[in-house]
């Protein structure tokens, strides 16, 4: 411990330089932590969102599958529709246990808030056994059920009349969902026929959610649906998860390369700082040797300084990553085609441990040469040196 105390005291002798070096490492580690946690958070949140769909297979109109996924998970306006008649065909497949047709629309409420409308019927309820409605199911074409967040944002409660923005339609709030902690909390649910009429999309669907009769035979069901219908995309949700995460993985290679460069630069910064400190302290190191310090002792001391710099940098980096997680998330979300909602960068001990171990390795590697140089200083020459 005394080595690290002495090393720490040496570092604080040159505060500005040490702080800048620590920052160099911290930035590299912060980027690493953020990206790694983002990847992990992305995958687990995506799994959660797909699970919340309550379906095994998704049927969407032909088009970009990522757009379809975004629509299915987060709702929105998508200028691609299927004929409602396809729902009957899907339901007729013996492998299908339940199938719910959904139409979607999005409107802007005052304050520029995006309101997602989902047109559903009783079939949708069968995919949502966990739903608890405060109020009751649709009792007329002009009733509406709201997710708790949507109700809060619209400022309505059960029994109130809600004016649908942009549509000039009045609906009565017959139910508000108890919080589900899924994307449903932010949606507004309207009878399917009502939304089709309201949006001028009679007989159209955006999405069919399918629950398989036998989960283990989902692949057979997908094959069967694909064979029967050519005008739609049929995705098992597991495949969607794989497709989206592999898309993310391909970007990871580039980002990892950038992080690697940042980490190397951080290491070179540490090496440079400690090497400069060694040159400046030649006389002092000579004195330590005159006092009996061996090559190994001096090596250990300088190495301890480097390791300390790198590890403090690593810890600061994790802290920076956690503090700036919202900002980083917002930046990354803006750059990728689909991102799950909810917090993606959080605290995780394994990632923290990985970052600290990496900082330690960085310190060990970057510190080797300066420590070797310091250990090689000859006391006689050092004390004579000007």
């Amino acid at each position, binding site marked *: 411990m*005394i*080595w690290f105390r*002495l090393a720490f*005291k*040496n570092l*604080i*002798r040159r505060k500005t330089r040490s702080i800048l070096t620590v920052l160099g490492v911290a930035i590299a580690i912060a980027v690493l932590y953020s990206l790694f946690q983002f990847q992990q958070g992305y995958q687990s949140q995506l799994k959660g969102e797909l699970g919340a769909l309550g379906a095994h297979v998704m049927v969407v109109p032909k088009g970009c599958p990522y757009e379809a996924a975004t629509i299915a998970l987060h709702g929105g306006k998508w200028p691609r529709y299927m004929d409602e008649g396809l729902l009957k065909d899907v339901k007729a497949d013996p492998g299908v246990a339940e199938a719910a047709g959904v139409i979607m629309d999005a409107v802007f409420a005052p304050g520029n808030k995006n309101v997602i409308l989902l047109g559903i019927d009783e079939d949708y309820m069968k995919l949502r056994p966990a739903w608890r409605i405060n109020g009751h199911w649709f009792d007329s074409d002009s009733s509406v059920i709201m997710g708790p967040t949507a109700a809060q944002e619209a400022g309505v409660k059960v029994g109130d009349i809600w004016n649908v923005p942009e549509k000039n339609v009045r609906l009565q709030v017959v139910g508000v969902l108890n919080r589900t902690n899924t994307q449903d909390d932010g949606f507004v649910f309207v009878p399917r026929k009502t939304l089709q009429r309201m949006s001028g999309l009679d007989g159209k669907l955006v999405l069919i959610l399918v629950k398989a009769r036998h989960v283990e035979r989902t692949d057979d069901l997908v094959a069967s649906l694909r064979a029967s219908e050519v005008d739609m995309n049929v995705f098992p949700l597991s495949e969607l998860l794989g497709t989206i995460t592999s898309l993310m993985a391909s970007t990871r290679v580039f980002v990892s390369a950038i992080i690697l460069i940042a980490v190397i630069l951080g290491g070179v910064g540490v090496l440079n700082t400690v090497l400069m400190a060694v040159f400046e302290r030649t*006389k*002092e190191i000579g*004195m*330590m*040797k*005159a*006092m*009996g*310090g*061996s*090559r190994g*002792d001096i090596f250990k001391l300088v190495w301890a300084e480097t390791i300390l710099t790198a590890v403090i940098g690593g810890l600061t980096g994790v802290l920076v990553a956690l503090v700036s997680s919202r900002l980083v998330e917002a930046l990354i979300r803006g750059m990728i085609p689909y991102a799950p909602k909810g917090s993606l960068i959080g605290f995780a001990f394994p990632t923290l441990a990985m970052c600290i171990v990496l900082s330690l390795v960085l310190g060990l590697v970057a510190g080797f040469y300066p420590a070797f140089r310091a250990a090689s200083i000859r*006391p*006689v020459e050092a*004390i004579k040196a000007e």
Partner: protein
Amino acid sequence: MRSDEVRSQITEARSQNCGQDPAVQARSLTRTYRRGAEKIKALKGIDLDIKCGEFVGVVGHSGAGKTTLLNLIGLMDRPTEGKLGVLGTDVTRRAVRLDALRRKNIGFVFQEFYLMPTLTATENVLLPTMWGKARDMTGSGSAIVDRVPSRDRAKKLLDLVGLGHRMTHKPSELSGGEMQRVAVARALVNSPRLLLADEPTGNLDTATRDGVFSLLLALNRDSGLTVIVATHDLGLESRFTRVVRLEDGAIVK
């Protein structure tokens, strides 16, 4: 008195370790340096014997070879030619590990004090105790049984050099004379058998110089510690028990 305990430890070290061996025995000791293509003989085959318990002044003008001699005796350098025995060990043998021998047996005081600016007086005194392995500090090679230094020992040493009240002060809060006293305490922390001082008063004013010199003298007189001081200060010559005068790398007296 605490400082008496330290003195008695140093005395004990001397009596147990010096034995019949001379503190320093040099024969035809030569040290040559290279400066580019030029060869400079800093020491030209000197013969020298210093007994245990002596208080020796190595005097001479700048460039006479004083520091070179002290560096060789202090095991910071190896001679180019000749033989050198320090405390009974032939240190010209390549197999001898100079740093371990130095750590256990030799205390150094420099003209520039080389105190660590971020450490307190106590921590500076204890600095040499962190070097080397524990066995060096407790091993049979040492004479003083209680070789494991502690804050208590640092306090005793600072008391001995008259700085018991400055234990927690950093070098920037000490005067030049006080810093040199801390450096003397630091040189004594591993209970050395030989204390070497290279121009220890060179950076001090006359009054402070006398104080530091008197301290070295007292350590020799009261504890019997072998002290070798290199100086170009002619005013100090009369106070040594023996003077070795160097001129141009050779002993002239």
